[in-house]
């Protein structure tokens, strides 16, 4: 009788012991699981926070891409974007960031991230009046909100400092106070984008740059600021080191010239790219350079009533305030002391003119195209240019931005092949002040033998070659002038509220 009783008691103790051990083990495992789960959440919440930044920066890139598209294909730009009015409501108006705020939600960025969550960006672009620069160009503000869903449920994890940094929206969006369908994290970037003009470098040769004299010097100044110029003019004591030269090609011949700036080539140094005779380049030599070339088209304008068809004996044309006066000539051929004067306002206030030349420009002797003070001229030339002697007169207080010379792209030949490059030759000019943008033209600038030729401006050509003794001073104000060729981000701020 006693034996079965004893057996039963012993069996009960074992069960109790097993249960107790099981409970202890479960508690240990549960604690471990909680610790692990917390760490897991911290890592995933941090990863989602990082993904939100990538999405926000992607949103900035999407907006920037549309701005660039507006330069080359305006009809295709801003497709899918919406205009929002001052009340925040979407309207049916065509999206135009200059006129009003426009917005876009990026389905392009929908992607699967850590834990099967999604990321996307909400983008707004506008043009505040406070973002208009001294040259009158409008800059743009892009506000991009990167949204990334957070895996791991609606539980917070990590230290207080983590939560202060990442500001997870587990139930409500902390920016809008609206409920969220699933936990998310948002990051907002405000980027300011400025237009970049065609005249970004002192010398830019798409195919090549050839400097043939060690007495050539490039440097820079800024006619807008007194600490970088005197009365808007170049002085050696205030010279800056932004006299950059560059080519998209692999080879650049610096010719021992004094380049107070950088010399850049396309391609990679280790793969054959090279700057030859670069011993006097102060800003260093760089590879992997590439600059997108803006197609140059002559504006489609109606010439002013009564303006001549061609210029061969010298004449006077009037620039106008506000919108530019337009003139179309089949050619400009001046010799001896004939002058084509672009007349401005008597008091020197700003006036504007556009001259389209469908044929060649030829100036020799003391002949010149002369600008009055305060006149801004853009010349679009479809033919070749040959300047000897006086050439262009762009007197003080005019700056290089006052005289812009564009080589218009030529259509393909009838057999579909590429048209041969045009030619712009400027020789014997003592004091050229202006800027040339002709990416499909061979630009040749001939200086004197012993006398220094002071050139203020910027030259972009298919090829650019300088010979003789001359100094080219790049006016940094040119970077904000000329036709808009690109946009770039100049300010970046993450709004971490």
């Amino acid at each position, binding site marked *: 009788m006693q034996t079965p009783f004893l057996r039963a008691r012993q069996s009960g103790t074992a069960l109790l012991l097993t249960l107790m051990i099981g409970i202890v083990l479960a508690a240990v495992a549960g604690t471990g699981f909680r*610790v692990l789960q917390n*760490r897991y959440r*911290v890592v995933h919440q*941090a990863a989602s*926070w*990082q993904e939100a930044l990538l999405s926000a920066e992607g949103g900035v890139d999407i907006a920037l891409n549309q701005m660039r598209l507006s330069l080359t294909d305006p009809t295709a730009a801003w497709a899918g974007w919406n205009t929002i009015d001052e009340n925040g409501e979407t309207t049916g108006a065509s999206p135009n960031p200059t006129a009003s705020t426009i917005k876009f939600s990026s389905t392009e960025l929908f992607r699967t991230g850590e834990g099967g969550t999604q990321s996307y960006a909400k983008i707004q672009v506008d043009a*505040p009046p*406070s*973002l*208009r*620069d*001294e040259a009158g160009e409008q*800059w743009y*503000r892009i506000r991009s909100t990167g949204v990334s869903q957070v895996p791991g449920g609606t539980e917070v994890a*990590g*230290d207080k*400092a*983590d939560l*202060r*940094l990442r500001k997870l929206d587990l139930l409500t969006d902390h920016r809008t106070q609206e409920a969220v369908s699933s936990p998310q994290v948002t990051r907002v970037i*405000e980027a*300011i984008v400025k237009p970049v003009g065609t005249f970004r470098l002192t010398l830019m040769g798409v195919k090549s740059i050839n400097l043939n004299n060690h007495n050539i010097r490039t440097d820079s100044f800024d006619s*807008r*600021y007194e600490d970088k110029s005197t009365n808007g003019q170049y002085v050696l004591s205030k010279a800056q080191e932004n006299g950059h030269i560059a080519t998209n090609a692999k080879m650049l011949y610096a010719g021992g010239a004094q380049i107070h700036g950088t010399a850049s080539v396309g391609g990679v140094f280790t793969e054959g790219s090279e700057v030859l005779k670069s011993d006097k380049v102060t800003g260093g030599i760089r590879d992997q350079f590439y600059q997108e070339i803006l197609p140059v088209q002559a504006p489609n304008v109606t010439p002013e009533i009564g303006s001549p068809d061609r210029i061969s004996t010298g004449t006077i044309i009037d620039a106008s305030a506000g919108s530019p006066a337009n003139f179309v000539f089949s050619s400009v051929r001046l010799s001896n002391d004939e002058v084509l004067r672009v007349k401005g306002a008597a008091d020197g206030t700003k006036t504007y003119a556009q001259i389209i030349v469908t044929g060649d420009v030829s100036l020799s002797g003391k002949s010149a195209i002369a600008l009055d003070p305060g006149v801004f001229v853009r010349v679009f030339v479809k033919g070749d240019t040959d300047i000897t002697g006086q050439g262009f007169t762009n007197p003080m207080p005019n700056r290089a931005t006052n005289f812009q010379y564009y080589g218009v792209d030529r259509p393909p030949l009838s057999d579909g092949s590429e048209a041969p490059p045009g030619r712009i030759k400027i020789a014997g000019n003592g004091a050229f002040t202006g800027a040339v943008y002709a990416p499909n033209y061979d630009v040749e600038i001939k200086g004197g033998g012993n006398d220094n030729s002071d050139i203020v401006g910027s030259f972009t050509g298919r090829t650019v070659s300088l010979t003789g003794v001359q100094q080219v001073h790049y006016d940094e104000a040119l970077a*904000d002038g000329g036709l808009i060729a690109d946009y770039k*981000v*100049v*300010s*970046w*701020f*993450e*709004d*971490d*509220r």
Partner: protein
Amino acid sequence: MRRSFRTWQAGITLVEVMIAGATSSVLAGGMLLALNTVQRSFRASEHYVNRQTEQLRVTDYMALDLRRALTVTTVDERLRMTIPEYYHIANDGQKTPREPTISRGQVDYGSAPISIAYYKEGDKIYREEAGTRLTLAEDVEDMAIDYEDLDDVIEVRVNFSPKYQFSGATAGDRAATTAYTRVLLRNKRRN
């Protein structure tokens, strides 16, 4: 009855008790040692994971500020920078973004950039903004931070001393814990 008594006597000889006691002692000692080792390992692992979380937090804070910095210096083991005065702060503490303006070809928010510094003092790592300190990590005496200024990129390296070795961590062990971030300064430097 006799057989049963004999059998009971055979189970409790002195020798058997001594052997059982010795075996039990060895097993108990081994278990205690194992438990202690597991506990040390758990603590070392927890320390390691905590430090990694703190590394992530510290580098994330720094990266956020560096991306929007206008000026950066890395002297005296401190990372100092200025960021735009982006916010207008109302009396109730409400922050609203300022309208950007252009001055000398640069974008400005407000007129006085905000100073920010990161540094380690004692066993804490701080972020100091306009004189107000925020503790980013506590009890991190073994943590070390260094910075490298690569002009348009700043590299931040954070490491600590792991506790897995009885004899203490070597320089190699510490180096193996290094977490680093390279941040491209989005704004053109003004210093």
